């Protein structure tokens, strides 16, 4: 067996023996004020599949997300993403690095979170983790789109409330692409969710209602400083559901329905997340920090 394979297997064995837990928000686009717990690493593999309108291409855009709780109020995430279009090609569309910071230490009626993201993408990106400006180009071919690089800084203001067992979240987005003169682009997303059961049963069960969270989110673009508004922008409304399939993993599903001509008629999102507890401690030990 090649040495690299052995190392990889060992690393995988170490990862899978870590204790883990999943408590994922069901949303794909909308952020809540709930942060990743300090030292925990969440690994998620998701995809966005677009069902085309006439003139649009069918595509699937997979992405991988590594989310790490730096402190109880600061979470960092790295994304790697790609895209594959029917009758076209499969391309790597770039990476994103985001940070979320919760300025208030206590829970309030409305909990703000500040979000800053750097994106190094090309215009073929279609994961649509958010929609800003008019939305992605769904008609051009990958060869053309990958030649256009987007070097973008994105900010969000996340407002989120837990009212009884409902979570209500609103995100306001402003993004600036430094590679092109597009002005500052805007977008939004709002979401509401609730667990299907609020009391935990005493026994282990996987199909109990307490393991499911359901909700709905709506997101879209709001144009840019060159032309603000909802004209010629993509908008979706999407029911969401998450299922804690084990103590350490969550499956999420969301069929989104396009509300404007610039949207895909249907956007199917699927995600699987696995959470590793105490990853920070283990990495620190690996690099020699005394406990």
């Amino acid at each position, binding site marked *: 067996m090649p040495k690299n394979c052995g190392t990889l297997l060992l690393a995988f064995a170490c990862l899978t023996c870590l204790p883990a837990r999943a408590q994922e928000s069901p949303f794909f686009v909308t952020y809540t004020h*709930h942060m990743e717990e*300090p030292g925990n690493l969440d690994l998620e593999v998701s995809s966005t599949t677009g069902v085309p309108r006439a003139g649009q291409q069918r595509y699937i855009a997979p992405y991988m997300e590594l989310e790490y709780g730096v402190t109880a109020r600061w979470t960092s995430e790295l994304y790697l993403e790609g895209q594959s279009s029917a009758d076209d090609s499969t391309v790597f569309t770039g990476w994103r690095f985001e940070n979320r910071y919760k300025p208030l230490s206590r*829970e309030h009626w409305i909990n703000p979170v500040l979000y800053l993201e750097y994106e190094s993408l090309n215009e073929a990106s279609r994961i649509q983790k958010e929609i800003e400006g008019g939305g992605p180009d769904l008609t051009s071919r990958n060869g053309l789109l990958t030649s256009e690089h987007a070097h973008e800084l994105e900010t969000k203001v996340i407002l989120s409330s837990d009212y009884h067992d409902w979570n209500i979240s609103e995100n306001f987005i402003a993004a600036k692409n430094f590679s092109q003169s597009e002005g500052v682009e805007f977008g939004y997303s709002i979401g509401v969710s609730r667990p299907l059961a609020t009391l935990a049963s005493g026994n282990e069960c996987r199909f109990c209602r307490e393991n499911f969270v359901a909700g709905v989110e709506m997101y879209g673009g709001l144009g840019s400083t060159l032309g603000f508004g909802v004209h010629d922008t993509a908008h979706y409304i999407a029911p969401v559901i998450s299922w804690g399939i084990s103590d350490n993993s969550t499956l999420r599903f969301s069929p989104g329905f396009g509300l404007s001509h610039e949207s895909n008629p249907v956007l199917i999102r699927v995600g699987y997340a696995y959470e590793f507890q*105490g990853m920070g401690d283990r990495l620190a030990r690996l690099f020699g920090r005394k406990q």
Partner: protein
Amino acid sequence: MKRGAVVFACLASLMAFGQNPGYQQDTHWRVPEEAAARKNPLLSRPEAAAGGRKLFLKNCAECHQPDGSGMEKKHSADFHLPMVQEQSDGSLFWKLTNGNSSRGMPSFSKLPELQRWQLVLYIRTLKD
């Protein structure tokens, strides 16, 4: 006899290694009076503590250990101590809802309200 004492001492020190019997509360982590006065709506349903145990193992055991004895290196509370058990249900509920970021304790407001009360109910069962 002597060997037995040595083994006992070793076992005791191993058990103490991960515990936090010297836990000191963060004096800045103060619970508002109104929150401290809240009553646990599940008091009349002690059987709900079983669900609380499940939630505890899932959400709290990483820092507080499965037996709730806390960990010194994480400054996490030993739930067996009187200084924890003497706090009101409302105080414990408020603390796990808000967390204490300065000591690395996350907020568990993402859990439904009743599940947080189930955790309080379970923590009460850890009283020595």
